[in-house]
């Protein structure tokens, strides 16, 4: 039983997070930036669930992993940078800058997936993932800052929990990365990254309760 939860615990929590956030999305009335954040977040969890299903079912887990790692990495950049541009109140002309930024950042991701496949090792994706996560954590912090300082906090309470969860997720993944673990001679391994994901999923799942409490108390 313990072994089962060790292997599938993260995937089970992932499905629960998707279900509960989807229910929240269906039951609540959201608009603007908050609606977009929740929708993007549900799609993000949905891609992970699909990735997990294929990882379990497929014999070629290397290829499935590389394809979905590239998809989720580009999607995370799209999600967080898109919301960041929107919280910066950019004009329509900035949508071109957004596309250029995503394109520049997508090049190393695609290159890393190809190099990992051709060189038969995971070093390229480990390296690119590390740099991406730093950028994504900075992006999440900027979004939280903008939400707290410019937008109405209570109206965007879901976005706040989503992005604070992302900050936790990316922060812990930086600690779990090769570069950091090798430099401080900690035992680097997959389990550390899995715990990082587990903690973030528990946070996102638990935040549903706080959102419900805060919304029922202050916004009803």
């Amino acid at each position, binding site marked *: 039983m313990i072994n089962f939860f060790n292997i599938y615990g*993260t*995937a089970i929590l*992932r499905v629960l997070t998707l279900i509960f956030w989807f229910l929240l999305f269906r039951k609540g009335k959201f608009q603007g930036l908050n609606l977009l954040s929740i929708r993007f977040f549900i799609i993000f969890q949905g891609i992970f669930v699909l*990735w*997990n299903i294929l*990882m*379990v079912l497929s014999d070629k*887990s*290397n290829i*499935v*992993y*590389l394809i*979905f*790692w590239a998809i*989720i*990495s580009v999607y995370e950049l799209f999600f967080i*940078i898109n919301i960041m541009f929107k919280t*910066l109140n*950019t*004009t329509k002309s*900035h949508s071109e*800058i957004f596309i*250029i*930024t995503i394109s*520049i*950042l997508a090049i*190393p991701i695609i*290159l*890393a997936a190809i*190099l990992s496949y051709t*060189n*038969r*090792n*995971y*070093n*390229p*994706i*480990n*390296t*690119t*993932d590390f*740099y*991406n*996560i*730093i*950028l994504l954590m*900075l992006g999440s912090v900027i979004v939280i800052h903008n939400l707290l300082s410019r937008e109405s906090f209570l109206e965007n309470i879901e976005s706040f929990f989503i992005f604070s969860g992302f900050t936790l997720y990316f922060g812990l*993944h930086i600690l*779990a*990365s*090769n570069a950091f*673990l090798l430099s401080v001679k900690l*035992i*680097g*391994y*997959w389990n*550390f*990254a*899995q715990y990082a*994901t587990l903690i973030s999923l528990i946070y996102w799942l638990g935040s549903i309760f706080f959102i419900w409490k805060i919304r029922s108390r202050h916004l009803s």
Partner: protein
Amino acid sequence: MKRITIIILVVAFVLSALSVWSMLKNCQDTSFKAYASSIECNAQGDFMPAPYDNTLIAPVKPNGNNELFCSMQGDIMPKGWDEEEEED
């Protein structure tokens, strides 16, 4: 606003360049050493991918049983009983 846009573009460009440079520098390493210390892959994902075919050894868990010795609260891990007895 123009300043913020330029900063975002510069950060994106610098990080991409740094990422490609580091990646190309390290991509020739075999996964043998990394897999031996069980850090072959630690990018995002809920399930670890299978090791590549050129990795012919099983993952070694460094530190042996030390890791399982004490997992309670505390900032500094206590020594093992055997180690202390040896010192005495």
